[in-house]
């Protein structure tokens, strides 16, 4: 069954093109189009409905110990009011999901997971809980909006204080509604994510869109933005066959503590994630073979035309680390297209 987010009727009213994504009816784009929506986030401000995202909570004396054992990152020194990325792995080092952890209190954590993995994640976590911990899937108690772009602070600042640091959050109110506002996002741009009660989502959505600078954006732009910023997506750059180390997420993996999958992933690192800029004519998408001279070295995991950079880029998992500048070719529907290895991320915002 496909679910509707609390903003479904708003998307219809805005003439959004609705698709079934991860079990939710969501707009892939509005009549504005993916390119303008993308550029709005890079240069102005865009608003996304990301209510499909899953949320779970860990509470109790052993909540922290559970996070540190089930997730790859170390949350021991995560301060209240701060957010930290992590991955959840199988025993063999493959990824169950990637996620972000909010520390609400000493023994109180709020974790955001991918919509498509929510039920799998919940089952996996429940299988591995230990000690005194209360775990709950609270996904249906939250809607989520993402306000992203250089002007997002100016827009949101009209209603509330803002979390000042990247990857920090505050509990606050907007129009009298209780919300969590974090300085986070999946676009590579300055921006905020707002967690609210489902019944408050429509009012907040409409209020933010009253500012003419705010452009509603769909899943299409969300994907081109994250790809341009080279942010990995579960099911593309990582899945149950890929370890977080292989896909370049070392910063979110702490090998000096015990966690599920550690020993297996330490023993294997057969792949690397690289960035490819397409220099020939064409667009490489996912699942294209990548060659260095005539040797097959791996395959692309995501690729598209990046609207801000105005060119085709792809990420790939390959057999070893290649120096930036290394020429490669990508097989696109039977045609070899030229490209070169470039440093990730493709796009990094200026601070």
């Amino acid at each position, binding site marked *: 069954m496909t679910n509707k987010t609390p903003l479904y009727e708003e998307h219809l009213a805005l003439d959004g093109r609705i698709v079934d994504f991860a079990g939710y009816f969501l707009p*892939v*784009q509005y009549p504005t*189009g*993916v*390119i303008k929506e*993308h550029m709005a986030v890079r240069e102005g401000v865009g608003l996304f409905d990301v209510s499909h995202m899953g949320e779970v909570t860990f509470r109790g004396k052993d909540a922290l110990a559970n996070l540190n054992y089930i997730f790859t990152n170390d949350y021991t020194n995560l301060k209240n009011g701060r957010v930290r990325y992590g991955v959840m792995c199988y025993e063999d080092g493959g990824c169950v999901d990637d996620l972000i952890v909010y520390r609400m209190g000493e023994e109180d954590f709020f974790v955001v997971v991918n919509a498509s993995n929510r039920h799998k994640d919940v089952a996996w976590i429940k299988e591995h809980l230990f000690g005194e911990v209360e775990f709950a899937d609270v996904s249906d108690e939250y809607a989520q909006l993402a306000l992203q772009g250089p002007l997002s602070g100016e827009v949101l600042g009209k209603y509330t204080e803002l979390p000042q640091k990247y990857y920090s959050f505050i509990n606050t109110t907007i129009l009298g509604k209780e919300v969590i506002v974090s300085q986070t996002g999946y676009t590579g741009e300055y921006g905020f994510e707002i967690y609210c009660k489902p019944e408050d989502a429509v009012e907040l959505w409409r209020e933010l869109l009253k500012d003419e600078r705010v452009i509603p954006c769909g899943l*299409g732009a969300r*994907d*081109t933005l994250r790809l341009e910023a080279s942010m990995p997506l579960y099911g593309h750059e990582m899945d149950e066959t890929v370890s977080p180390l292989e896909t370049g997420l070392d910063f979110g993996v702490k090998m000096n503590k015990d966690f599920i999958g550690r020993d297996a992933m330490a023993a294997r690192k057969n792949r690397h994630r690289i960035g490819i800029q397409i220099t020939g*004519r*064409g*667009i490489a*998408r996912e699942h294209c073979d990548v060659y260095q001279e005539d040797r097959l070295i791996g395959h692309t995991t995501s690729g*598209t*035309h990046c*609207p801000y950079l105005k060119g*085709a880029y792809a990420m790939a998992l390959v057999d070893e680390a290649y120096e930036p500048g290394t020429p490669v070719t990508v097989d696109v*529907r039977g045609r070899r297209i030229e490209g070169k290895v470039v440093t990730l991320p493709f796009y990094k915002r200026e601070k």
Partner: protein
Amino acid sequence: MNTPKELKYAKTHEWVRFTSETECEVGLSDFAQDALGDLVFVNLPEVGTEAVQGETICDVESVKAVSDVYAPVSGTVTEVNEELLDSPEKINEDPYGAWLFRLSDVSCPEELLDAEAYDKFCAEEEH
């Protein structure tokens, strides 16, 4: 949706503008460009290619996906619109001005739709 009366259409969403009895221009309909979204790449056929009605002749790419373009009639490619290689967005902006290629020796084994029939066909396809 804009569907000029003077053109003919294929169910695969190409338009055909006959410039003589045996020559024509081919492009993508307004319905097609809208469904595809922002186009960012066009892979045109080579001059001399034999187009066969109903078979893939080239492709266009939006940010989200690649889509085949089918030959709406049979014929020989005499010219391609190279301007589109650098400006594929012209197909979105002006679908009936942005022809993709020109054909000679045109034959049309299967009949094309007129504007009215094509509009009706699109309305059905949307549901």
